[in-house]
């Protein structure tokens, strides 16, 4: 929305204390974007594996580096957060859990669940 008013626009993000529900909404968007980009990387990984041993070795080298691991870790967390929060959204779409108290509790549950699932995945894998 462009601002073609001569009068000032009152501050918004600059002054608003976002509640937990709003912060998680931002994270949901962020993880969704990360998953989109991550899937492109995933295709790249598959293509490297399909292109023969040499290219796979160099891809494997990247994935084993600290940076590669960080990317994979971020992807894992994004996947679990987006999944858990997506389930929360499904309940909301059914009209359930929209009272402030439950929206807060389910938000905290999503954080806890996605962290535990991420850590578990990395411990097992």
């Amino acid at each position: 929305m462009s601002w073609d008013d001569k009068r000032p626009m009152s501050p918004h993000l600059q002054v608003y204390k976002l509640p937990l529900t709003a912060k998680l909404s931002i994270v949901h968007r962020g993880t969704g974007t990360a998953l989109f980009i991550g899937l492109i990387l995933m295709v790249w990984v598959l293509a490297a594996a399909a292109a023969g041993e040499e290219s796979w070795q160099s891809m494997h080298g990247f994935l084993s580096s600290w940076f590669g691991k960080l990317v994979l870790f971020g992807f894992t967390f994004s996947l679990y957060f987006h999944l858990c929060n997506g389930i929360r959204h499904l309940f909301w779409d059914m009209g359930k859990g929209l009272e402030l108290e439950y929206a807060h509790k389910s938000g905290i549950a999503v954080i806890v669940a996605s962290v535990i699932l991420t850590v578990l995945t990395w411990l097992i894998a």
Partner: protein
Amino acid sequence: MAEFKLPANSIVKIGKTFSAPKGGDKEQAKNTRKFIIYRYDPAIDENPRTDTFELDLDNCGPMVLDALLKIKDEMDSSVALRRSCREGICGSCAMNIDGGNTLACTKSIADIKGDVKIYPLPHQPVIKDLVSDLTHFYEQYASVEPWMKNDTEIAPDKERLQTKQDREKLDGLYECILCACCSTSCPSYWWNSDRYLGPAALLNSYRWIADSRDEATEKRLDDLEDPFKLYRCHTIMNCTEACPKGLNPAKVIAKIKQKMIKRKIS
């Protein structure tokens, strides 16, 4: 595309500071609090600023509105704000206090830690100081045609009756005072208020959708069937957090979305 930064003419500068006036006796006030207030004067060609007013809370009413009126009466009469009922029913003194939208008259100063920061309702054109232009907000309210539509003829001396159960369906809807706290707290409304109706207008649309005496339910739903008018709600829930009347616009919007789906599949 959402514009997260303020336009150049809207960047807030630091303004003046007013110290607490000395009490009736010679003694300096002890229980003081700083009120940092957004100021904009359309008469001078300057960016908005924040002025700081130090108040003696031992000599001030308990609510933020009391403090604002004390500042206006005793320190700077040019501070502009809307207020009327001072008891949370008119919705005039809606503003952004301590980072959240609420009514100055029902917000207790004691509930705020540290300096009390007061801004106009977010992401609106500012007329002066804490007075923002809500013309667009009211137009959106009017666009949902918030009146009863009923073509059934009825004798002028008869009422349109409603069962107790049907009347209860309007609880949580009819209490809206149109203060705009919810709509102007919503990031989706900030970025898309040109096309998204916002929580207040949607709640008031549902107030008539849910009314057993209204016969225009289908037409009302048709009007909301739009990628922006209704579906820009992403359940961020700032609206419900902000509502000074304790209503739940987020839940009401979810009910409208459910009605949309139900009529599609039935």
